[in-house]
């Protein structure tokens, strides 16, 4: 028998090992989704052929989602008046520092890509609604049109960086056994692609775009399932600490939520629905993308919370 008594009596620390609350998983979810939107919208818009008006506007979702995510981050930060300190330093060893700078990079890239994807009429309409700033929008639109190819590459690279970093943030913190896996970066990236596709599918894109998104989403879901399996096998076949960490998801307190919400509702069910919809055996509904979003949010809540127990 081993009994441990910590007489720290520190209400600031002892009742909760959980330093990070709901804000971090929400931020990781929104950041991942923004990365998915950046990558998938760029790929869709690079195709020749007809584009739906909705798809032309949807790249604006990326900076919007990142803004919401940064708001969640701001709520988590305890020393709020000192937030500007993030931008007086770059620490290569700290993923949090990489993230702070990537977020800043996302804004110009995603806004220019979004402008580039508007047609002349849409850009003119946007400029007319913005008053004096309209001229700036017109100039930026013209510039974005000229550099559309370069912007697409920048958008794919920044999107991948953003998506990967949301997982790398956790995986470098070796003190938490559940997070010490290099697979978290790729897992969060494909999950971001999947939730990004889901968000785009919730809007009235045309049927060809919807079909492509569903197909890419199926690939993302399949890859995510394989990576999650490897992640759990990697932990469970490791040291006692890793086995205990994997046990949290395989049979411990987080098992029910993980298998029901992430694997069942977030991966298996939407994959099945998308397969049936693709073969025209089922009417296309927003159910599959909605389930993917639920699964993506649940994955981040469970991993962030379980990692800190």
């Amino acid at each position, binding site marked *: *028998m*081993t*009994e*441990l*008594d*910590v*007489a*720290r*009596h*520190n*209400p*600031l*620390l002892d009742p909760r*090992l959980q*330093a*990070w609350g709901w804000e971090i998983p929400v931020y990781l979810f929104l950041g991942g989704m923004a990365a998915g939107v950046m990558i998938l919208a760029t790929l869709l818009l690079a195709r020749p052929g007809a584009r739906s008006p909705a798809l032309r506007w949807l790249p604006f979702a990326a900076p919007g989602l990142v803004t919401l995510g940064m708001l969640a981050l701001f709520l*988590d*930060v*305890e*020393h*709020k*008046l*000192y*937030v500007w*300190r*993030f931008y*007086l*330093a770059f*620490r290569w*060893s*700290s*993923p*949090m*520092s990489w*993230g*702070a700078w990537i977020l800043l990079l996302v804004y110009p890239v995603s806004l220019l890509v979004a402008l580039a994807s508007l047609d002349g009429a849409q850009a003119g309409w946007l400029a007319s609604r913005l008053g004096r700033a309209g001229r700036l929008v017109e100039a930026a639109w013209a510039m974005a049109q000229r550099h559309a190819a370069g912007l697409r590459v920048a958008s794919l690279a920044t999107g991948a960086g953003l998506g990967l970093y949301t997982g790398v943030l956790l995986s*470098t*913190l*070796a*003190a*938490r056994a559940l997070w010490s896996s290099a697979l978290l970066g790729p897992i969060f990236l494909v999950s971001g692609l999947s939730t990004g596709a889901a968000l785009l599918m919730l809007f009235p894109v045309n049927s060809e775009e919807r079909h492509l998104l569903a197909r890419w989403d199926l690939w993302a879901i399949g890859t995510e399932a394989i990576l999650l399996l490897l992640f759990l096998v990697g932990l469970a076949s490791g*040291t006692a*600490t890793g086995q205990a960490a994997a046990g949290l998801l395989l049979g411990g307190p987080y098992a029910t939520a993980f298998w029901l919400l992430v694997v069942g509702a977030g991966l298996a069910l939407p994959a099945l629905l998308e397969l049936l919809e693709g073969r025209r055996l089922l009417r296309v509904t927003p159910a599959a993308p909605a389930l993917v979003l639920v699964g993506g949010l649940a994955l981040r809540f469970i991993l962030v919370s379980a990692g*800190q127990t």
Partner: protein
Amino acid sequence: MTRRYAMAVDTRRCVGCNACVISCKTENDLPSGGFRDWIVQEVHGQFPSLTLQIRSERCNHCAETPCVAACPTGASHVAAGGTVLVNRRKCTGCKACMVACPYGARWVHPDGHVDKCTFCLHRVERGQPPACVETCPTRSLTFGDLADPASPVARLVARRPHLVLQPEAGTRPQVFFLT
């Protein structure tokens, strides 16, 4: 020679009186509920054959510092003698260091910045021992320069069997528990 501040905690002398905890709180003017050191009592075995180890724990001022690596602003840094400190004017309270620390040595001060043991560097620089060391009534705590083989702490660590907390974390802790 480069100094390497370290502490030896004699678990055979420690009676868990909490004097180190209180003297630290007073010396460093810590807020209500905030502590930089604490007492752990670990009991092993089946009654009546029990063993008890009492440890006065604090930040291990590790030689490999995941907390400093995780800090995005450089607020967490390695200062004189390898002491790990937080510059509260650079700290955003993002808590990355708290999540990176395997020992739970860090906490959020009510003012918003992260707080932790400093080895009382302000006293050490005046030639005084840390407050906990000075107060300890059983003389279980020994502080000094590990890089100086003649120092009391280096001699204790060289002579006595000891353990460090979670060596598998790869942090090379500099607080040694003599057993």
